[in-house]
């Protein structure tokens, strides 16, 4: 089953309330996904030359301070960081590849959840309410956010198998459905140099998009080709540094609903998750058409029909 939700703010004045608006949306999807939950939030961009990473350890008492100290020594780079439960957000003036290889050496058991300029991914096992409380979602700020509540089918209920997945800078994807050709596609993408951390089917979809974007595709072109390359049932909500997109497979077995006002675009598996949003009774509410891409990007808004 699984539930997916997304909220993209068109009105910057609402940015301080992003977490507060999104928290009830995530929790409304508990019935669709009680096993684990997570979200990718965009905002608080780092300057040119800096990279932002979200790192997660297996337990809350992991000594991140020592790790960051060692990293600082090894890379001799300016950095800034803060801890949030079992995760930290690390901003560092260095190349992403250099940070990744230093982390692989210093702390191979610490997982890199996301990397980019803007994205932070926080996720874990438990009810959506527990996850949002654990990470203090309600007080978070940002421009857009996508989230997932998981009812596991393809792989085990673990922190690693929790969604969302990110396999490219500032790119994140949440998925309701299942892919049938993920095994083969993962092998092909590995040959193209895309790294995968799990055996999860959704990570392959994220990897596919990351690969297409690396090849120079626009988000629209990448999503177009994903309709051909991915075999299975899916509704995706996708976040990029400055954009938000929704797409469903041509058969469209998996539900999706969109709502738009002058202030925001919101997406959910079911309308229930949208009912807490301000002004929803006056919003334009519609079901996205199968095999059709809906994209919103900063400075422009468009629903592009393929």
């Amino acid at each position: 089953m699984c539930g997916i939700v997304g909220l993209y703010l068109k009105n910057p004045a609402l940015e301080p309330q992003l977490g507060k608006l999104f928290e009830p949306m995530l929790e409304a999807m508990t019935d669709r996904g009680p096993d684990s939950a997570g979200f990718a939030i965009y905002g608080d961009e780092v300057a040119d030359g800096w990279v932002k990473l979200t790192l997660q350890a297996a337990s809350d008492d992991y000594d991140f301070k020592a790790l960051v100290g060692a990293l600082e020594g090894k890379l001799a780079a300016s950095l800034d960081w803060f801890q949030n439960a079992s995760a930290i957000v690390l901003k560092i003036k260095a190349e992403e590849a250099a940070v990744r290889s230093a982390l692989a050496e210093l702390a191979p058991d610490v997982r890199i959840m996301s990397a980019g300029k803007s994205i932070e991914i926080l996720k874990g096992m438990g009810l959506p309410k527990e996850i949002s409380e654990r990470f203090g979602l309600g007080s978070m700020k940002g421009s857009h956010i996508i989230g997932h509540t998981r009812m596991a089918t393809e792989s085990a209920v673990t922190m690693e198998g929790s969604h969302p997945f990110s396999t490219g800078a500032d790119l994140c994807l949440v998925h309701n459905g299942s892919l049938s050709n993920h095994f083969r596609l993962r092998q092909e993408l590995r040959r193209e140099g895309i790294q995968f951390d799990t055996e999860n089917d959704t990570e392959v979809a994220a990897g596919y998009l990351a690969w297409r974007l690396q090849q120079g595709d626009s988000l629209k072109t990448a999503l177009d080709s994903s309709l051909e390359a991915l075999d299975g049932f899916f509704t995706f909500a996708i976040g990029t540094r400055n954009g938000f997109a929704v797409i469903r497979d041509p058969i469209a077995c998996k539900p999706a609903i969109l709502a738009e006002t002058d202030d925001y675009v919101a997406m959910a598996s079911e309308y229930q998750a949208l009912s807490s949003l301000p002004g929803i009774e006056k919003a334009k509410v519609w079901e996205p058409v199968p095999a059709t891409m809906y994209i919103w990007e900063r400075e422009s808004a468009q629903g592009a029909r393929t």
Partner: protein
Amino acid sequence: MKTFDLGNTTVRDLNQALHDQAKTLEEREWLVTHPDGAHNLAVGVNEAVSVDIQGHAGYYCAGMNQKASITVHGNVGVGCAENMMSGYVRVKGSASQAAGATAHGGLLVIEGDAGARCGISMKGIDIVVGGSIGHMSCFMGQAGRLVVCGDAGDALGDSLYETKIFVKGKVESLGSDCIEKEMRPEHIEELQALLNKAGFNEKASDFKRYGSARQLYNFKVDNACAY
């Protein structure tokens, strides 16, 4: 009129109250407020009551309805009026997938659009859609009528039995064994009566009729050797 506020009661309470009072019928008019997309609203009602739902409803709204008249002042999720036996369901907004699925009787009116698989395996219901419908609508439709004032998506009427389909706009593609048929005077008369009953100001002669070519639904004895 009895008002049920789902902001402070449960769907189970609502449905139980609708079932309980159906025996005595002391209250024929019901108003449901703050539905907020809840699933299974007014399901299995089996008396001639009137229910107004003020807002958007979730999945299976008015499912298995008999005799009742149910109006949703908003959109509905998957499976609205699925397996309806009789009565009347009106959706002021749009419907998601599988509206009127497997339904045996009654009238379902959707003022907006309906998603994919509208009227799938319908068995006698009349469905009138003011807007357009999605793909695979009326798949294996057995009886009843599906009327679409807008356009129809891919594979309309695939593996159709005896459901009559009328579409005013464009049909993206017809499904297996579904063909366009002549609109004879009796069809125009029949459709006009249905459009009037559903409250649509449309001219029946603007519609095209589609039905089964009847090549698929009987087993051909010539094919027996294949098994």
